[in-house]
């Protein structure tokens, strides 16, 4: 029976609870028969008893203590302890803080309804709070119950350490010599501590235990305080976890049996499971999160951020809004950026030297002067030309990246910066266009420049990324330039095979073209004699051709007053194209990347029969 003593030593509560049938009849005041008087216990043992009452007791070889008086022993010892240690810090704390509420005694006569007992905190210190920060090195896991998930150290006043030098953080493993009764005690003691409504039996079923664990886990991501099931600390019974059914535990009491011969049992519900409390898991996670903090996530973790953006966009496209399945994204806390730039003092001349340990003095800017010999001049010229192209491409890339990131930055920027950002964006786009021009005063996109850029693999990629950002006349001009020089480009592309990157942006541009521009484009593609033939040998060329034809088809079918048919140019061009297509044997025709749907039937038919009679028929189909 529970004695009406102050249970200020919270951990001792765990020893108060034991099932009904364990109680010896009648109250007992003072020590039960089997228990050695407290005076016989050494100071160390007494300390141990204070903190982890049952463990050292087992070690004391007092088998009887286990059996008879799990609940009694410590309480009685408390009596003795209290009388012995009046000056202990414990007493001072008790005096200072007062005692937590005791459950009414009358309950002990009814069923052993101990389910309302508050779970004790994990370690020896009283309920007040965690020890001061200085006492604990940085790397140690939490030992105190944390009222808030992550800032346990901030809110608690300094507390007196009631801790012996040796800490038994984890209880010793399953003691070998236990009777079934004591096992049942152990089994039920942690379970009785949950704040279940009265009437719930002390032994949880498997499902309830799992639910309990789940609800423990579920508390964290909500970011709120610990779930009500764990008021003060981890669910941390003596043996570290809700124990499995009795028979199961008996099987594992013997050390000799193969440890995992019964599958999942010893793992999740074993006597040693839940060694890591909820708080500890949160603590580890907190450290991992801290490592992910960054001032500029787009800088530090660019690919992750972009990947998730793309995935979210894809998800929005694919799924309808009713299905709210969003992959959870890790949202890292963003640390404020610290301004590190050094602003020069007004009135100073030139660059200011900021000397530091690593940079004692600013060096003079070295200027590179190039000197060419006549012999190597030509070679160097070629090499220089290539380097120049690469250099241009790099410059354009840096502009392009800024333009591409503009949207993102615009959204994030505060109101007053947005104007400036917009201006910057416009100027960058302008700069990009200008690079494509050959001469400063010439407004048109230079063919040569485009071809030059596209002779490099990186340049082709650049153009493909750049096209969506160019204003439409310029974009159209670029596409024209491409089609005009397609044979040369195709030849240069033989090694790289990357022209096909251009298909998508070029398709987008084509769809925005007007009819006359489209006709022009087709004409450019045909170009001089024999150009179309070589075009047809190239995958990109065929795709481009099909795109143009399909766009023309679409224009005619959709737009009633389309000007495509106004002059005969379009018709003539299509005729010549078809003639060419027919004359080329199908085997040497490169398969396009995709065939636009509205051209499918006529062109398939085109490839089949090669009779001349089919040609006008097909042409009319096209028209």
């Amino acid at each position, binding site marked *: 029976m529970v004695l009406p003593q102050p249970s200020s030593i919270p951990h001792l509560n765990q020893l108060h609870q034991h099932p009904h049938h364990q109680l010896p009849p009648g109250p007992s005041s003072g020590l039960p028969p089997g228990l050695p008087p407290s005076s016989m216990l050494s100071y160390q043992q007494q300390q141990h008893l204070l903190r982890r009452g049952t463990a050292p007791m087992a070690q004391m070889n007092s088998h009887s203590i286990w059996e008879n008086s799990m609940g009694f022993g410590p309480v009685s010892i408390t009596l003795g302890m209290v009388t012995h240690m009046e000056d202990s810090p414990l007493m001072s704390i008790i005096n200072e803080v007062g005692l937590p509420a005791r459950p009414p005694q009358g309950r002990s006569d009814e069923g052993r309804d101990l389910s309302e007992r508050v779970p004790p905190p994990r370690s020896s210190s009283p309920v007040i709070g965690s020890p001061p920060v200085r006492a604990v090195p940085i790397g140690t*896991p939490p030992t105190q119950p944390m009222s808030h998930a992550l800032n346990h150290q901030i809110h608690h006043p300094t507390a007196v350490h009631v801790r012996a030098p040796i800490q038994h953080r984890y209880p010793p493993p399953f003691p070998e010599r236990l009777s079934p009764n004591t096992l049942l005690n152990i089994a039920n003691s942690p379970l009785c501590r949950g704040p279940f409504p009265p009437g719930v039996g002390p032994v949880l079923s498997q499902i309830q235990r799992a639910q309990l664990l789940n609800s423990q886990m579920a508390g964290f991501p909500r970011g709120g305080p610990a779930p009500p099931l764990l008021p003060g600390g981890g669910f941390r019974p003596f043996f570290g976890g809700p124990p499995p059914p009795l028979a199961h535990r008996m099987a594992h009491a013997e050390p000799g049996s193969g*440890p995992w011969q019964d599958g999942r049992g*010893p793992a*999740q519900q074993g006597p*040693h499971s*839940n060694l890591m409390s909820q708080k500890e*898991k949160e603590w580890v*996670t907190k*450290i991992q999160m801290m490592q992910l903090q960054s001032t500029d996530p787009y800088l530090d973790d660019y690919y992750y951020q972009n990947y998730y953006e793309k995935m979210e966009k894809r998800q929005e496209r694919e799924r309808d809004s009713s299905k709210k399945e969003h992959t959870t994204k890790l949202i890292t806390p963003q640390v404020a950026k610290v301004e590190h730039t050094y602003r020069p003092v007004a009135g100073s001349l030139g660059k200011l030297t900021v000397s530091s340990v690593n940079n004692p003095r600013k060096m003079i800017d070295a200027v590179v002067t190039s000197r060419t010999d006549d012999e190597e001049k030509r070679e160097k010229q070629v090499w220089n030309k290539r380097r120049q192209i690469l250099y241009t491409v790099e410059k354009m890339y840096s502009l392009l990246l800024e333009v591409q990131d503009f949207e993102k930055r615009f959204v994030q920027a505060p109101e007053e910066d947005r104007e400036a950002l917009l201006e910057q964006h416009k100027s960058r786009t302008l700069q990009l266009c200008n690079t494509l021009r050959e001469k400063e005063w010439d407004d048109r996109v230079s063919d040569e420049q485009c071809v030059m850029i596209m002779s490099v693999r990186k340049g082709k990629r650049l153009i493909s990324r750049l096209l969506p950002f160019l204003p439409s006349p310029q974009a159209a001009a670029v596409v024209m330039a491409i089609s005009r020089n397609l044979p040369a480009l195709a030849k240069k592309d033989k090694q790289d095979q990357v022209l096909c990157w251009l298909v998508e942006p070029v398709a987008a541009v084509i769809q925005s073209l007007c009819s006359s521009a489209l006709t022009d484009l087709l004409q450019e593609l045909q170009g001089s004699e024999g150009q179309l033939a070589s075009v047809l040998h190239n995958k990109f060329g065929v795709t481009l051709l099909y795109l143009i034809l399909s766009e023309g088809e679409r224009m005619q079918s959709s737009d009633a007053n389309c000007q495509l048919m106004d002059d005969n140019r379009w018709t003539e061009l299509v005729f010549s194209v078809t003639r060419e297509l027919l004359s080329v044997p199908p085997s040497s025709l490169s398969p396009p990347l995709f065939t636009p749907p509205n051209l499918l039937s006529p062109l398939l038919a085109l490839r089949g029969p090669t009779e001349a009679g089919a040609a006008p028929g097909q042409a009319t189909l096209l028209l």
Partner: protein
Amino acid sequence: MNYVPGTASLIDDIDKKHLVLLRDGRTLIGYLRSIDQFANLVFHQTVERIHVGKKFGDIPRGIFIVRGENVVLLGEIDMDKPSDTVLQQVSIEEILEEQRLQQQSKQETEKVKMLALKDRGLSIPKADNLDEY
């Protein structure tokens, strides 16, 4: 369930049976009980499994604490999957004997190889598994 979505974490692996391969070549199997920020692992009911050819033997080791930097790989063992029937479990003494024989034969071939190389005036430095020392 993952506290930190979009990342990999060992929190979900707690209290599950795992197999870990250490840098010194040992294979340990045990229940992962605790982790920390360095991926130091606490294993419970650990067994060191020695494989020699088609035979293997388990040496029970109790509780193991593995320093995180020494882990090569770590994987959860699926309890539902039927265990491998190709391998044959033998007693500890037998597997240790087998291992000793294996080491011996390896050393002998190594010796022969070194001798042959020495005769030709060549030397190949021995690759050390413990790469720091």
